[in-house]
């Protein structure tokens, strides 16, 4: 705590945290429902995770261990600066290991390592309204949620198939929560959608600019929308990670030179690193050297 003299614990004042916690409780009570909350100005621009940071600040305790990822990586600017922000304002422990963390704030990914009970996954959400691009009026979308009037959601998927021959939505793929609310899983790739279903961890979603919070309590039923003759299919890759050899994980394409060289590596850096460490300790193949 030595570096946090001038701030309240975790930056936000206690009244604000209470307000956000109330919104979180309501969100947990109604899975998938967007709860309005009085989002605060944060010392970072909108789009950098102001919603997620406020949720994290409100659930953070002195004995928590925080992990922050951006597109699966622990070492990108956004992840590093948010981690540093909480180190400074809350003096809490941070980690890059998924299994060591009690709270994980994320942008765009769910870690490959399965989450467990007691962990909290906090999503940064830019646009919480799944119906937004079809229906610009907030009054109307709220009514559609209230009345479960969700025909237009399938119109979007219909349009995808009509134009591309298959459902071409690959991220922010809409889901139905607990058989009731349609929810935007934030811009995570649809690859991660199945991980949301029946997840043992608590999942919280914060949208700072749009001032909305929503949640998936542990073990909530989450179904990706589809058609009977065009079922939902998570993204698959025809190769493994070039560094750790993992298959069935989400891969990032990395350009390695200016002559068309490229490689596909795990987007989850912690997962990839721990796999490689494990190999080296066990005297296994060193994929990095082999490459």
């Amino acid at each position, binding site marked *: 705590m030595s570096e946090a003299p001038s701030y309240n614990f975790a930056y936000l004042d206690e009244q604000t945290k209470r307000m956000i916690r109330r919104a979180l409780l309501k969100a947990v009570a109604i899975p998938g429902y967007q709860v309005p909350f009085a989002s605060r100005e944060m010392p970072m621009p909108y789009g950098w995770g102001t919603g997620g940071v406020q949720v994290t600040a409100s659930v953070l305790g002195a004995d928590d261990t925080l992990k922050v990822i951006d597109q699966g990586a622990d070492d990108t600017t956004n992840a590093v600066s948010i981690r540093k922000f909480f180190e400074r304002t809350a003096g809490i422990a941070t980690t890059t290991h998924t299994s060591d963390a009690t709270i994980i704030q994320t942008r765009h990914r769910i870690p490959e390592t399965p989450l467990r009970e007691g962990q909290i996954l906090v999503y940064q959400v830019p646009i919480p309204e799944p119906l937004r691009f079809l229906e610009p009026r907030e009054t109307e979308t709220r009514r559609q949620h209230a009345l479960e009037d969700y025909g*237009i959601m*399938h119109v979007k998927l219909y349009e995808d198939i009509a*134009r591309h021959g298959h459902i071409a939505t690959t991220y922010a793929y809409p889901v139905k929560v607990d058989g009731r609310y349609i929810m935007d899983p934030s811009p995570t790739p649809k690859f991660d959608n199945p991980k949301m279903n029946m997840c043992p961890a608590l999942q919280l979603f914060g949208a700072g600019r749009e001032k909305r919070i929503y949640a998936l309590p542990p073990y909530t039923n989450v179904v990706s929308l589809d*058609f*009977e003759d065009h079922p939902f299919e998570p993204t698959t890759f025809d190769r493994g990670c070039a560094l750790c050899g993992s298959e069935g994980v989400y891969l990032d394409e990395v350009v390695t030179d200016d002559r068309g060289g490229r490689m596909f590596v795990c987007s989850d850096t912690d997962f990839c690193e721990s796999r490689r460490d494990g190999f080296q300790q066990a005297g296994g193949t060193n994929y990095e050297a082999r490459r």
Partner: protein
Amino acid sequence: MTAPPDRPLLVAEGLTKHYGPNLGCADVSLDIHEGEVVAVVGESGSGKSTLLGLLSTQLHPSAGSVRYRMRDGEERDLLALGEAERRFLLRTDWGFVHQDARLGLRMGVSAGGNVGERLMAVGWRHYGRIRSEAEQWLDRVEIARDRIDDRPDTFSGGMRQRLQIAKNMVTRPRLIFMDEPTGGLDVSVQARLLDLIRGFVNDYGLAAVIVTHDLAVARLLSHRIVVMRHGRVVETGLTDQVLDDPREPYTQLLVASILQA
């Protein structure tokens, strides 16, 4: 036409709507039977569109009631329906064709998506079946099948109106509301649209309430006519009777002011 069933489909009684101190329409009572087309005519500001809004429950009346015989035969007070039920009624058993197609269609969504929307809203989840149903309805409104993936903003005015009708007809409604459906269309396109509507009325036993200021449209389509002025009904009766032998001075004036081509 077959003989109308005993009980009317929709019964409006004493419908009154005030907009603040201004009168929208006053004390309008109206029955609509299955398979019957009723035209509401009158000059601009006579309360036609207000009446249409009241009948279709999009406006809430200051006084009066609207009752509707549901598909299960039960008569319900529409003003007492919950919003979910009313919306369901609007997108299954009813249709609404707007003068401005942009109000009735999603301009950013393909023709097929527009026609399929109601089907998806009532639970259709099979893409192939939705699409083939949409294709059939495009056929019926004489839009080429190969335009199914085009957006309505690439369509002409007449095609947009026909697409609106297909979009509404896909759930086989029993009652359709039309607000100046031929407004802004040239005469040959109008004729084609009127022909289409008349065909649907005959083929599907569709009932319709058509608001128009065009007496020719009323004469071609409607069985009965309601003449409105200053928010009140001045005359009502069989269309040919009212238009050929108008009783009220205002109706006489209206009929006399048609240009003879």
